[in-house]
Every structure is written in structure tokens, then in C-alpha cells.
């Protein structure tokens, strides 16, 4: 059996060896790392394949949407479990996805399908401070930066990509950059963004 496993590992290794990575570092104009920035790469030429993940969830905990920023590939359904003892009325008027889930507790029976690319701003009708973003992209290759500001796009087949960087508070849109990735390459992708002055987010009452 050792012999059978070996080709599997080799296959995997080959698979691993054939994928490129993109290490994206997002910093603001002062050089500080930016959290919640989204980087996604759309392959040039051919449409991107569908990614493995087909569902996401955005919770409401303590009158706050968690996570603040979610990236999904178009066609993903998003669930909105309400973990609060009080009801929420989730809505969005964004053209990419206009919907509302009227006052509810617990988890709504039907998740919401985000099928159009674009920026979706979520709010709660009765809690003006609740805010969340869903960026719907058309590629499975995306990542969100944590506090350190570094995110890794994995398993990218070699080829040419348009790499976009997005943040909810972008002062100006960042132009996409084309990147040619070779297999096995981990290319660095530094990105500088200018953010709008963000008011300190008041805690929801």
C-alpha cells in the first residue's frame, strides 16, 4: 500500500507545486497595516472557476454584525443567524443585493443568495449603528486582511490575473494590477490604499 499512497502524495505535491500564491500586504498612506481589506484576483482570459465555499454566515452578536466584512463569490448564499436576545431587521438597499429580513430572532429559514458582483452594505433597521459589508466577487481567489494587514491568496494556477484591492472605507478606488503568476510562485503584492477618515464606531446601544 505504501506505493499507492506515494503517488497520491506526489499528486498532491504536484498539485501543490503547480499552485501559486499571492501574498498581499495592504498598508494605508501612513504605512500602517489595514484590517478588513479585501484582495481578489480574477484570472484574465477565462472565467474563474467556482470555488469550494458556497455558503457564508454573518452573525448578529451584541448588536453588531460579525464579521464586519465578508467576501463571497457570486452565487454564495449567506445566512444571518441572530445570536442576540433581541430581534433585528437586516436590510440592504445596495444595487448588488437589495433585500430585507424583517424583525426576526434566531436563524431565518432561508439564507440570502448573493448572485451579483458588487458591494453590498448591510444595516439593521432598528439599530442605526449596525453596519456590515459583503463584497461579492466573481472569483474564488480572494482573501481578507486581518489586523496585520497581510492576506494570502492560495492555490492560484499559474497565469495572468487582475488583482483588485478593496476596503469599505476606500477614499478612492484602487486600480487593478495585472500579475503574472508562475507555478509555485509566492508573489508579493504590496498595496497602498487611501482610506476615508473613519469615525470611531460607536458601540451599538
Amino acid at each position, binding site marked *: 500500500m505504501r506505493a499507492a499512497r506515494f503517488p497520491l502524495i506526489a499528486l498532491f505535491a504536484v498539485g501543490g507545486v503547480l499552485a501559486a500564491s499571492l501574498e498581499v500586504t495592504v498598508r494605508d498612506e501612513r504605512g500602517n497595516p489595514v484590517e478588513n481589506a479585501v484582495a481578489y484576483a480574477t484570472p484574465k482570459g477565462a472565467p474563474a472557476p467556482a470555488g469550494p465555499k458556497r455558503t457564508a454566515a454573518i452573525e448578529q452578536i451584541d448588536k453588531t454584525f460579525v464579521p464586519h466584512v465578508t467576501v463571497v463569490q457570486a452565487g454564495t448564499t449567506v445566512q444571518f443567524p441572530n445570536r442576540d436576545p433581541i430581534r433585528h*431587521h437586516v*436590510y440592504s*438597499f445596495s444595487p448588488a443585493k*437589495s433585500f430585507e429580513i424583517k424583525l426576526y430572532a434566531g436563524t431565518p429559514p432561508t439564507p440570502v443568495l448573493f448572485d451579483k458582483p458588487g458591494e453590498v*452594505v*448591510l*444595516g*439593521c*433597521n432598528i439599530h*442605526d*449603528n*449596525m*453596519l456590515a459589508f459583503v463584497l461579492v466577487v466573481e472569483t474564488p481567489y480572494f482573501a481578507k486582511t486581518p489586523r496585520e494587514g497581510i492576506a494570502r491568496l492560495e492555490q492560484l494556477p499559474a497565469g495572468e490575473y487582475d488583482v483588485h484591492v478593496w476596503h469599505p472605507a476606500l477614499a478612492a478606488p484602487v486600480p487593478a494590477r495585472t500579475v503574472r503568476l508562475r507555478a509555485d510562485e509566492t508573489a508579493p503584492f504590496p498595496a497602498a490604499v487611501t482610506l476615508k477618515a473613519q469615525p470611531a464606531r460607536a458601540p451599538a446601544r
Partner: protein
Amino acid sequence: MVLLFVTLLMTVQLASFYFIRVAIEEIASQTLREELQVGARVFRRLLDQNSQQLVEATSVLTYDFGFREAIATRDRDTILSALRNHASRIRASGMAVVGLDGRVVADTMDEAQTGGAYAFPDLVVQAESQGRASGMRVVGGKPYQVIVVPIRAPLPIAWVAMSFVIDDASARDLKTLASSDVTFIEVSGGAPRVLATTLEPGPRAALERSAAAVIATSAEGSRLMLGGEDTEVLATPIERKGTGNLYSVLQRPVAAGLEPFRALQLVLVLLACLSLAVTALVANRLARRLALPLARLAKAAGEVAKGRYDVAVQANEPARDEIDELALAFRGMTKGLAERDKVRDVLGKVASAAVADELMRGTVELGGEEREATVMFTDIRNFTSLCETLRPQESLALLNDFLTVISEVVEQYRGVVDKYTGDGAMAVFGAPVAEPGDAQRAVEAALEIRRRVLALGPSLAARGLPHPEIGIGLNTARVIAGNIGSSSRLNYTVLGDGVNLASRFEGLTKRYRVPIVVGELTQRGCTGVIFRELDKVRVRGRVEPVRIFEPLQLARDATTRAGRALDTWHAALADYRERRWDRARGLFERLEHEPGYERLAEIYLGYLADVAARQPGPEWDAAFTLFEK
């Protein structure tokens, strides 16, 4: 005098009234101004609070889910109807949605408008940075409070601009709070315009006319004449934007501020009238007490000045006040004057008026001065025999008749009767006051005295009395004129050889049987009088004999015949003196028969006889020696 007091008081009253009025107006103005300033501050705060409330209301409105949903649909008609609906909820004049790009999506105040730029981008900018914006803007000639707030869903998806018109009604609301008239004025390029006001049309027009001046006034406010009414105005800028400035003008008529002082002024006027009346009354009484008595005294003084010392002056004795004292003093003065007059009168009778004056003046001194004067002695011939048949009283009366004549004439010819000498008088011409023509007048007086004495003849004859005759001697010489005696008892008179000579001349009237004999100096001092030289007389103390003359008549009364006789006489006299005895004798003999020359011819024929008897030596001067009496 009443008038004086009343006028004085009235002036004081008017002056104080005027100053009080000025002060009152100042205070009222000041108070008004301060009130307006407070009003402006209140007004400002009201506007701010109002806009605050409007912002809150608008903000709440924009969180309405249905509204937000409607906006998100981007369907213009839906949005418009939602706007209309929501605007009416809070009674806004208009509501508009402005996209994040600054373009109007829908506007209830301009429904046709789509996609145009929003009129007040500065408010949007303000809202972007501060989360809300409010300002006053003029739209279509009307002032609006414009509120711009974001529509959050949950991030701003658009702006809502709500407009609340400031019309006359809202201005009225503000008026009750600011307690002054409120006007909104817009100044944009041309003439200022009144947008909304609480004023009536008349005052509104007046304000509009003076709007430029009003805007230019100071920040503390000032006083202007608006529509003929004094008004305190305070202009406060509300919005200063490039295209147009919006001002709020608070105003109040000064008269309003003066209201509370009306009562005070009325009281003042009443007080003034009262005090005026009281003063008039008091002044009147005072006048009666003062002016009338004074006027009476003045009138009495006038009477006294005219010489009527018997004027009656009423006064209370003992004196009750100063007026009485004055009256009493006046009475005393009048009495004193009357006495003095009497004394002077009496004195004048005793001495001449001139001397009396001098005596009264108290400038009389013992001693005298040398002056030339003409002395006259008069003597009533045979007075004794005249009075033989008379009782003493009658004699005196007769004497007084003569003396009266003499005195009157002497005084008439400006001489002075010196003294009465038994049955005659002595008079002086030229003392105490010398006048030119003294000698002339003395001679004329002598002639007149004689005439008047002769005129007494008929009346005396009627009483069975003999014919009166008078002898007068006149001599002009240097005499001593002055007071003789002691200081307590003195006589003013003249002394000297010349005086004695006059007396001797008077005595000579008997010898020559002529009425008047005058000395050479006297004769020389006369004009217009015909003289007859009588003789040359040697007197004691004189080396040269003096010539004596007789005044015959005034030249104007002369006759030809008398003149011829006179010439003959003087020729005879000359012959005699020049020792042409025979010729002289011949002329004298002729004159013996001439009326009036008998005695003289007789005397000179006697002289000639003497001369014939004793041939005169070379020193003979044809003078008759006068021996001492």
C-alpha cells in the same frame, strides 16, 4: 414785576422740562436699544433652536424605513410622492433629495427638475463634514430655513434637503418672543429687498426704502427715521454668502419706549402748571405789597421835584417793613426839603437870591475879594416930612412902598440890594457875581427907579401926601466885596473908598438939585445914555478931582431942544474951566433961564463970582472941594 417772576419761573420750568425730556428720550432710546440687542440674541438663539429642531425632525424622518426604501428604489415619481408625504408630516415647505454627486434627484418645490445641480452645494459640504447642515437661504424671493441631512441606509445614500419658509406668519411667532417687529431683508447686488416681515404695509414700505441705511447701521443698533417715526433698529446678519446676504432686522418705535414716561411727563407738566399758578399768585401779592407803594412814592417824588412839598405819602407807623421805612424816610425828606426851601426863601428876602444860594451852599467865608463894581445909594428925599402926618404903621408901610420899588428895579436890572439904610437903600451891581454891563444897568436902573418913584406921585397926592422925590448916587470903582462880621453872624457887603464916594455922590444930588449923580467911571461904562457933566469934585485921598455927571435920559428918548441946551451947557463948562470967564459968564447967564439948568447956572455963576474975587493961581483946576460929612 409779576411778569418778571412768572417769566423767570416759566423759563426755568421750560429749561428743566426740556432737559428732562431729553434725558427721558435718551434713556428710552438706550433701553430700547438694549432690548433690541437682547431680542436679537434671543432671536438668534431661536433661529438656532428652530433649525436644531428641524434637523432633529428631518433626521428622524429620514430614518423612516419605508422612506429609505423609497429613496433606494431610485424611482423618481415614488421618491417625489414619498417626499411630499414626509414633508407634510412636519409641515415643511419643501423636500428634496440630492444624490451623493450633488445633483437633485427630486424636489417637491421644483417637480420638473431632475439631475440639475443642487442650489446650495455648500450646505451639502457642511453636512458631509458635520453630519448635518442648516442655513437660511432665499429661494424665489422668500427666505427659507434649509436643513440638509444624510439618508443613511445605513451609510449615506443620498441627502435630504428640507426647506421651511420664513413667511410673515413665522415672523409673527418670532415677534411675540422678541417683542419687536421682525423683518428679513435680502441684499444681493441691487437694492435690498424685504422678504418677510411682521410690519404693516405702510411701515414695511418705509423700511424697504431705508433698507440700505438700516443694514449699514452699527451692530449695537441705531436710531432712524422710518416713515416719519423715530425707530430703534438693529440689523443682524444671518447668512453671508457670496451671492446674497440675509439680515434680520428688529425694530421698535421709540414712542413705544417712551410710553412709560408719558405718565411722568404728564405729572411734570401738571406740576409745572401748578407751580406757575402759585408763582403768579405769590408774585401778584408781592407786586401789590411792593410795586404799588413804590409807584406811589415815585409819583410823590415827582410832585416834590415840581416843588409841591405838601404831597401825602401813606406809610405805617411804626414801619412794618422796608417799604414803610422807605415811605417814612421819604416823608422826612420832603419835610426837610420844604424847610430848606422856606429858609432859602426867607434868606432870599433878607439877602439876594445869589447870596442866599451861596450861604445855603455853605461856601460862605469871612473875608472878601477885590472887584470892580458899581455901587448905588438911594435916598428918599424928605422922608421925614413925608411921614409927618402919618402914624408909625403908615410910615412903615409908605417906606416899604418905596423900598419895594427900589428892590424890584434893582433886581430887575440884575443888581443886588445890599442893605436898607433907614429911608433908602444901597445896592451893588457886580458883586457877588460880576456881569458885563454892570455900570450900564446900574444907570438904567437909577433912571427907572426915579421914573417909578415919580409914578407913585398921584397915589400919594390922593392921600394928601407931598410929591415924592429920590436921590441916587452911583460910583463905579474897585471895592472889597465879602462877608463882614463873625462866622455866626455876618453880612455880605462891599467896602472901600469907592463905596463912600457913591454915598457922597448921593448927597451931592441935593446940592445940584439933580436926581442922579454918577462918577466918571460909571459914565464911561455906559452907552446910549445922555449925560450932563455937573462938576469936578475933589475928594479926600484923591489928588485928581473926579468929574461927576448926571444921566439925563436914554439916548433914544432925547429931544433936539434938550440936546441944544446940553451943548450950550458943556460949552459953558469948557469956557469956565479954560478960564474964559466972560464967555462962560455969558453962557451961564443964558442958561439961567433954561428949564433944568437954573440951579447949575446959579452954582457956576457963584463960582465965577468967587474967581473974580480971588484970581486963581496956575494950580486952579476948577474943582469943587468936597468936605467930609
